[in-house]
């Protein structure tokens, strides 16, 4: 549990008199919902990374921007840390509360302010669910492209804070490519707008800087996203392989043929079996790997591309290729992939989802490394992979009730991420660093690079009150936990059994 906030390593947090703060906030913000009793705080003790739980000092649930502004003003004046949270679906602990901090929950800002089909934009409050934007845009033939697998529940404010992805990133980009503007409240209570409906703004590209900054530079209060016309046609090919490496090579062959698929996903044998047992998607359970290749766009091009991809897959040694006959079968093919996480969840009491990215050419080496780690640590690992853009989601199966297994899963996860960095990749492609990967940041970035990150933070939040401890580790933390990652030296918990 060495990722929980530790003032010795992560910096001292101001001591706040909780009762005095409650009295002050209640006096100044009588209409704002403020939770302070333990039983009321309990539901907010974790986000989607539920293995880690911290009871916040207070939970604020404002309804108006004026309340957010006043709350920030008071926290700024009194030196109280603020952790902003949306729907709480994040997988990296980006909204993990602080014992000495206020949890600012933006979920009541859930209004779609404007869908403008002429401009092809949606202006929304941060608590609006990702999928709700596409649903509201659908009558106009438009949609919002980034589709994280939690899109039914996750909110757009959190998507911007984490720069969320999805299965269509290679062609349609991440959140950063699909947001036109955000309104921000600074910790000092200033309103600023970054970006615009025009395609550029004067000065620095602060919109890009704030996207993915995990609530550490400001609080997002409104977002304008770009809407795209729905593709006229979408088709999915499913190819089976008797060898994972052949499937990996086929991915490169499709790209080399000049095709950028809308989605290109790979699953290994364990993931295929889990998904098939769960949703009966018609997956070939005897295959070592499958590829799902979605081609979308103008009908005539999709038809031509399907033929090209089929030829490429045949040449790459696919043992079976199936084209979804209709939209129903296409949805079924995708259902297996989109339910892969819960499907794996049925095979094991707990699982730990990783989010590393790699250059695709390194896939065989990384998969072998994962298999070796799985064997030496005695934990099964299922692999689902956004193959087109090199974003891996190894799912480590474990039992949190078995003594030491969580720590063992963390250790395997940490080593997988270090392997991703070693081959030239990143510790996170779309889930964010949050608190989960705070130690692995020390493997990806040098102390000098981390110092620059802290400088950027200080330019916007000199007192370090916004989401302290997330995303960027202190050098002290890297000295304590980072050295072993860089040098592959001693393990963090030598007392743990290894088998």
């Amino acid at each position: 549990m060495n990722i929980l906030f530790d003032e010795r390593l992560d910096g001292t947090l101001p001591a706040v008199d909780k009762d005095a703060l409650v009295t002050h906030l209640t006096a100044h913000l009588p209409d704002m919902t403020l939770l302070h009793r333990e039983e009321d705080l309990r539901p907010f003790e974790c986000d989607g990374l539920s293995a880690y739980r911290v009871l916040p000092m207070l939970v604020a649930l404002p309804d108006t921007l004026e309340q957010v502004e006043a709350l920030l003003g008071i926290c700024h004046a009194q030196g109280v840390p603020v952790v902003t949270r949306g729907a709480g679906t994040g997988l990296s602990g980006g909204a993990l509360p602080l014992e000495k901090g206020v949890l600012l929950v933006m979920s009541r800002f859930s209004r779609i302010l404007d869908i403008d089909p002429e401009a092809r934009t949606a202006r929304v409050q941060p608590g609006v669910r990702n999928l709700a934007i596409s649903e509201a845009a659908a009558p106009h033939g438009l949609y919002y492209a980034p589709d994280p697998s939690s899109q039914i529940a996750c909110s757009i404010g959190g998507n911007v804070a984490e720069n969320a992805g999805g299965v269509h990133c290679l062609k349609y980009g991440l959140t950063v490519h699909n947001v036109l503007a955000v309104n921000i409240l600074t910790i000092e209570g200033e309103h600023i707008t970054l970006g615009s409906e025009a395609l550029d703004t004067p000065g620095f590209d602060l919109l890009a800087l704030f996207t993915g900054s995990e609530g550490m530079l400001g609080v997002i209060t409104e977002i304008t996203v770009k809407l795209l016309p729905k593709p006229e046609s979408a088709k999915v090919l499913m190819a089976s392989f008797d060898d994972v490496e052949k499937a990996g090579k086929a991915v490169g062959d499709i790209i080399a043929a000049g095709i950028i698929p809308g989605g290109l996903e790979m699953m290994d044998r364990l993931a295929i079996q889990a998904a098939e047992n769960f949703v009966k998607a018609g997956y070939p359970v005897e295959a070592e790997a499958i590829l799902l290749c979605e081609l979308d766009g103008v009908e005539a091009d999709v038809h031509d591309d399907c033929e090209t991809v089929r030829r490429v897959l045949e040449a790459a040694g696919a043992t079976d290729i199936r084209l979804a006959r209709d939209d129903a079968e296409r949805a079924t093919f995708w259902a297996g992939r989109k339910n892969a996480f819960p499907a794996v969840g049925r095979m094991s009491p707990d699982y730990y989802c990783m989010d590393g990215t790699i250059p695709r050419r390194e896939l065989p080496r990384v998969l072998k490394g994962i298999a070796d780690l799985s064997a030496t640590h005695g934990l099964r690992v299922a692999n689902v992979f956004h193959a087109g853009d090199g974003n891996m989601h190894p799912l480590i199966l474990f039992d949190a009730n078995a003594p030491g297994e969580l720590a063992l899963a963390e250790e395997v996860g940490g080593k997988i991420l270090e392997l991703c960095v070693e081959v030239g990749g990143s510790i996170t492609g779309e889930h964010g660093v949050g608190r989960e990967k705070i130690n692995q940041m020390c493997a990806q970035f040098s102390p000098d690079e981390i110092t620059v990150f802290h400088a950027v933070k200080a330019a916007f939040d000199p007192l370090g009150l916004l989401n302290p401890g997330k995303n960027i580790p202190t050098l002290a933390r890297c000295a304590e936990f980072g050295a072993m990652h860089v040098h592959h030296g001693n393990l963090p918990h030598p007392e743990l059994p290894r088998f």
Partner: protein
Amino acid sequence: MTHPQDQHPSQDARTLPARDHNASEALLERVRQAAATGTALRLVGGGSKGFYGRPVVSETLSLAEHTGIVNYDPVELVVTVRAGTRLADLQAVLAQEGQQLAFEPPHFGENATVGGTVACGLSGPRRPWAGSVRDFVLGTRMITHDGKRLHFGGEVMKNVAGYDLSRLMVGAQGTLGIIDEVSFKVLPRPAASATLRLEMGLGDAMARLAEWGRKPMPITGAAHDGETLHLRLEGGASSVANTQAQLGGEPDDTAFWTQLRELELAFFSRRHDDRPLWRLSLPHRAPPLALDGDTLVDWAGAQRWLRSELPAATIRQHAAQAGGHATLVDRDRAHGVDAPFTPLSVVMDKYHRQLKAKLDPKGIFNPGRLYEGL
């Protein structure tokens, strides 16, 4: 990891990409000296975009010798290149593999470099459909104010670890650090392309574009010169042919897009017209602005070029009311304007200065290039 030279050993040396020359150490040394003595540095690549910004009066640091493609793997859709590499050289290497920089950057001169392209953050006619320079930057190596060479982002499609320093460098005009190397996402060139001329007024053109914009059509260029809508279609052979048949119009010279991108159409010529040239960046559906002068519309309405004698404040006020901003593009420095870019609001200015103070505390990188004192 492949290198173009390895793949085409027999090729004429003159068509090969820029000399593989890593000048990082020399650059770092110059920065350390400048930091020690508090000397400001004017960063120069090919010198093709020196006009795009305020003059910087200080010692020159040339990046032109820092050249070469560090890594290019077409199947990964990633290329990493040193900042001083000529843009044309990079594009030639990508073209050999059937790939391109999809944001279609303007050159403004044969010596335009990759570093200057990223620093100035300019994108060409395809921008509304494909994305801008920053959308294709995956990572950078940058030289910091204290003479360190640091790596942000990377050579993978998705990387959300830490703050996005790489994209922050785009358009910052070298005021926050020196771009040493850049990794771009590259894309296949479209299988088919067609350029059409459709005779119609601006109002009709904007209405048609708004309608087409809600449909999945293979449009990647849309400019109106006052009489004619120039439309580019790119995509698969079938969709381009079908759309062309559906829209009609006259086939047009594809060189139009190059001339538009490079500001070489007659509209931009100072011989024809010596009024100042303004670039208006506006929401694409903004109605025509009531400003005296001649307008050429690009980016389906989101970028409008204006030749006008009106005062800067008037032009900027109209642009701001329409939801955008106005930049003076003075290629010959004929108009001697001190503030080419729209001034920042008080709060934005404060955070720009605080960021500059953190990343370049001694103010050695291109001081004043974007704004006075920044």
